[in-house]
C-alpha cells in the first residue's frame, strides 16, 4: 500500500511537471499557476470544505469502480447507477413525508438499493450470458439517462424544464453545523457517508469472507470455481455492491451537494470515478486520497483561471496528463520492485543452499 502511494505521488508529480511545461507554453508562470491552483482548493476553510464536498461523490464512484476492478469487472456504468440512485432518493424525498431523521436515512438506503439494482442487470447478463460488462453498462447508462429524463420531466418537473423540484433542506444531507464549520461551504453529511464507505469497503476487501471470495473470483475464475466458490453469484454480487456505491454517490450529489436533479446530463463523476480509482491503485484508502486530490483540482482550477490568464481548458489538460502518468504506474512500480526484489531473490538462494547438502562426486 505504501508502495502504491509513492507510485501515485510520482504520477502526480510527473503530471504537474508536464502541466508546468504546458503553462509555460501559453506564456504563463507555472509556479504562480500551481500556487493558485492549490490555494483555490485549500486557501481557507470554505475552500477546503468545497474541496471535500466536491470529492464526496468522487470517493463513492471511485470506490464503486475500484471495487468492481478488484473483482475483475470494469464498471463503466457508475454514471448511470449514480443517476438512478440519486433519482430514486430524490423521488422519495419529494413524495414521502417523514421526519428528517427517518426520511434522509431512508433516501440513502433507497439510493444504494436502486444503484445496486441498476448494476444487477449487467451483472446478471455477465454471469448468465457472458455479456461483456463494458458494453452492457454503457447501454445501461443511456437507458438511465433517458429514464430519468422523462420521469423527471413528467412527474417531478420543477422550477425550470431541465430540473426537478427542489428537496426541502430537511430532506437533504445538508447540515448547517458542518456548513458553518467550513464558513458556508456546501460540504454536507455526504462526506461522512463516503468516509464510512471507505472504511466498510476496505474492511470487506481485507477482512471478510466475502472479500476473499470476490477477490478470488476477480483474480482467477477457474481457481475460484475449483474451490467451490460460486462465480456467478459473486459476479452479480460484486456488480451490485459496486452499483450500490455509485447509487450512494447519487444521493450525496443530488441530495447533498445539490438539492435537485438535472436532466439531460450524465453525471461526470461516473467517468471521473474511473480515473480516481486508477490513480488510487484500486484501494479504498487510495481512492479516498485521489478523490480529494481531484476535488482539490476541480475546486482550485477556477481560482487559477481567475487569478492568472491560464485558460480554463489548460487545467483540464493537466488533470488528464496526471491520469496519463498514473497509467504508467506499472512501470514505476516495476522500477521500485526491481530495487526491492533483487534483495528478496538473493535471500531465497541463500535459503536453498542451506537446505540442500552438497554431495557431489
Amino acid at each position: 500500500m505504501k508502495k502504491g502511494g509513492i507510485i501515485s505521488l510520482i504520477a502526480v508529480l510527473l503530471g504537474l511537471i508536464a502541466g508546468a511545461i504546458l503553462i509555460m507554453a501559453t506564456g504563463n508562470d507555472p509556479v504562480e499557476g500551481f500556487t493558485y491552483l492549490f490555494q483555490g482548493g485549500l486557501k481557507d476553510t470554505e475552500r477546503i470544505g468545497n474541496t471535500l464536498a466536491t470529492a464526496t461523490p468522487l470517493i463513492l464512484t471511485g470506490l464503486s469502480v475500484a471495487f468492481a476492478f478488484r473483482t475483475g469487472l470494469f464498471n463503466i456504468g457508475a454514471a448511470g447507477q449514480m443517476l438512478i440512485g440519486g433519482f430514486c432518493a430524490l423521488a422519495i424525498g419529494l413524495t414521502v413525508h417523514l421526519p428528517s431523521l427517518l426520511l434522509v436515512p431512508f433516501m440513502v438506503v433507497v439510493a444504494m438499493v436502486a444503484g445496486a439494482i441498476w448494476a444487477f442487470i449487467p451483472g446478471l447478463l455477465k454471469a448468465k450470458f457472458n455479456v461483456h460488462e463494458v458494453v452492457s453498462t454503457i447501454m445501461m447508462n443511456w437507458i438511465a439517462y433517458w429514464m430519468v429524463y422523462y420521469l423527471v420531466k413528467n412527474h417531478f418537473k420543477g422550477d425550470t424544464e431541465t430540473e426537478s423540484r427542489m428537496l426541502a433542506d430537511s430532506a437533504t444531507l445538508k447540515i448547517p453545523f458542518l456548513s458553518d464549520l467550513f464558513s458556508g461551504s456546501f460540504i454536507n453529511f455526504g462526506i461522512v457517508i463516503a468516509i464510512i464507505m471507505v472504511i466498510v469497503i476496505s474492511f470487506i476487501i481485507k477482512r471478510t469472507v466475502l472479500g476473499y471470495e470476490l477477490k478470488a473470483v476477480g483474480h482467477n475464475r477457474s481457481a475460484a470455481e475449483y474451490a467451490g466458490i460460486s462465480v456467478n453469484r459473486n459476479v452479480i454480487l460484486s456488480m451490485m455492491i459496486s452499483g450500490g456505491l455509485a447509487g450512494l454517490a447519487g444521493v450525496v450529489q443530488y441530495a447533498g451537494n445539490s438539492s435537485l436533479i438535472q436532466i439531460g446530463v450524465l453525471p461526470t463523476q461516473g467517468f471521473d470515478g474511473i480515473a480516481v480509482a486508477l490513480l488510487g491503485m484500486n484501494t479504498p484508502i487510495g481512492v479516498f486520497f485521489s478523490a480529494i486530490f481531484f476535488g482539490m483540482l476541480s475546486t482550485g482550477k477556477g481560482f487559477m483561471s481567475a487569478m492568472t490568464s491560464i485558460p480554463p481548458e489548460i487545467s483540464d489538460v493537466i488533470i488528464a496528463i496526471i491520469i496519463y502518468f498514473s497509467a504508467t504506474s506499472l512501470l514505476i512500480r516495476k522500477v521500485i520492485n526491481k530495487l526491492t526484489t533483487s534483495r528478496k531473490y538473493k535471500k531465497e538462494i541463500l535459503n536453498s543452499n542451506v537446505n540442500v547438502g552438497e554431495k557431489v562426486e
Partner: protein
Amino acid sequence: MEYVVEMLNITKEFPGIIANDDITLRLKKGEVHALLGENGAGKSTLMSVLFGMYTPEKGSIKVRGNEVTIGNPNVANSLGIGMVHQHFKLVSNFTVTENIILGLEPKKGFVVDVKSAAKKIEELSKTYGLNVDPYAKIEDISVGMQQRVEILKTLYRNAEVVILDEPTAVLTPQEIQELMKIIKNLINEGKSIIIITHKLKEIKAVADRCTVIRRGKYIGTVDVKNTSEAEMASMMVGRQVNFKVEKTESNPGEVVLEVSNLSVKNNKKVLGLKNASLQVRAGEIVGIAGVEGNGQSELVEAITGLRSIEEGSILLKGMDICKHSIRDRIRSGIAHIPEDRQKRGLVLEYTIEENCVLEVYNQKPFSKFGLLDKDAIAKHAKKIIEEFDVRSGEGAKTVVESMSGGNQQKAIIGREIENNPELLIACQPTRGLDVGSIEYIHKRLVEQRDSGKAVLLISLELDEVLNLSDRIAIVNAGEIIDIVNAKDTNEDELGLMMAGIKRGEGA
C-alpha cells in the same frame, strides 16, 4: 573433432541471481546432446542465450568454428539454430501452416502464399516422419502434434541444430516413442540436437553425451553410454536419489468412491467419457493410465463437480453426490490436486497463506461470522509450509506468483492433504518437476494411502502410474478399457491397452 556449436564460459545474470555461471557446452555435429539439471538450474536460460533471446554477460559462442554474436532469434535462425521451447510458442487459433510460416511468410503478390507453404510443410513432414496436417488448427490437435509443429518450424527455417527444451514433459509414452524416432530421423538427415530433459531414461535412450549443470554451475559432461542413471542423477542434485518408490503391500478397506456407468460431455459437447465404472477403496491408490484427452479430465471434473454429468452415478462412501455442489463435495471429503496448478489450483495474486485456505476460508477456525481470522489462517499456512517444505522468499506472506513451479505444487499438495480428505484425486502431481521433488511428492502420496485414504492418481507418466498405483484403470477414447493390478502388468502391456487394444486381443 568437429563442433557445430560451442558455448564457452557463458555467464548470464538476472537481477539477484546468476542463472548461468561460467558454463561451457560443446555440441558435436550429428550428436544428440542432453542437458540435465534440476528445476531452475539454468538450462532454459543457457539455451535462450544460444537462441539469441538473452545476451550473456560473459563468454562467447562459436558456430561451425566462427565466433558469433547472437543478438536475437532471427540471427540464431540464420545461423541454422532452431529451438522448440518448453512452453510452445504457437498461436492456438491459427493453422499449422500459419504458425510455421509466421515471420517468414512466402508471398504471391500481396497475398501470403499459404498453398505453396503448406505443400512444402507436407513434404518436410514426410521426410522426417512427422505426420502433421498443415491445415489443422493448433487448438484442435494434440500436444504431441503441436510439438511436431514446433519441430517443423525449425526445419522450415533450415535449422541444422535443433534445441528441444523439455520436449517429453507433456507427452504420452507413445508420443515419446515417436519423438525418439523423429530425433533419430533428424540425426540421420545430418542435424545436431540439444535436448533438455529431467528423465534419465530418455537420456539413456537417445543421447550421446550429457552435460550436467546445477544451480547455474557447470558440473560436467559425460558419455551417456558409460554413465549410469544413478550417477547422472547424483551429479544433478548433489546427492543420492531414490528412484523406486518404496511402499508396502496395500491393504484396501471399504469402497470410498464408486463411479458407475458415468457418461460426461467434453468441451466440444460430445461424450468425452462413456459409460465408465470404477471403484477406489480406502487405503489404495488407483491410477488412471491413458493418453491425454481420453476422458481423464472429464472423469475428474465430474467427480469434483466442475462438470455436469449426462448419465450414471457417483457415490462417495455410499452417498450419491451427483447433485451436490462443488463445495459440498469438498466438505464431504474430496480433495483435488488439479492438473493445471496455475489455472485451477492457485490464485496467483494471493499469498501462500491465502491460498492455503482456498477451500476452507469460510469454515471455522479460519473465519467466524463472515470475518476472516488472520491468525488462524497464518498458523494453518505455517504448518503446511513446514510439513511440505514449501520454499519461498517471504514465507507465508509470499505472493504465490513469484514462487517456482515446484514449490507451488508442494503448497497445493500440502493444502489438499491438510484438508484430511477421504478421497484424494491427484492429477499430474509431478508434471515438470525434477527428480528430487518427484521423489518427495511420491512419498507423500504413498503416505496418504497408508493412512487409509483413497487415492485416485491421474498421470501421463507411465512410470509414475506403475510405481505408485495398486490398481490401474486404462482409458482409451473415453472408455475404461480395463482395470488391472499394478503388480501383474508392465509398461508394454499398458501402452498397448492405452492404444485401445484390450488384453489378450493383440499380439
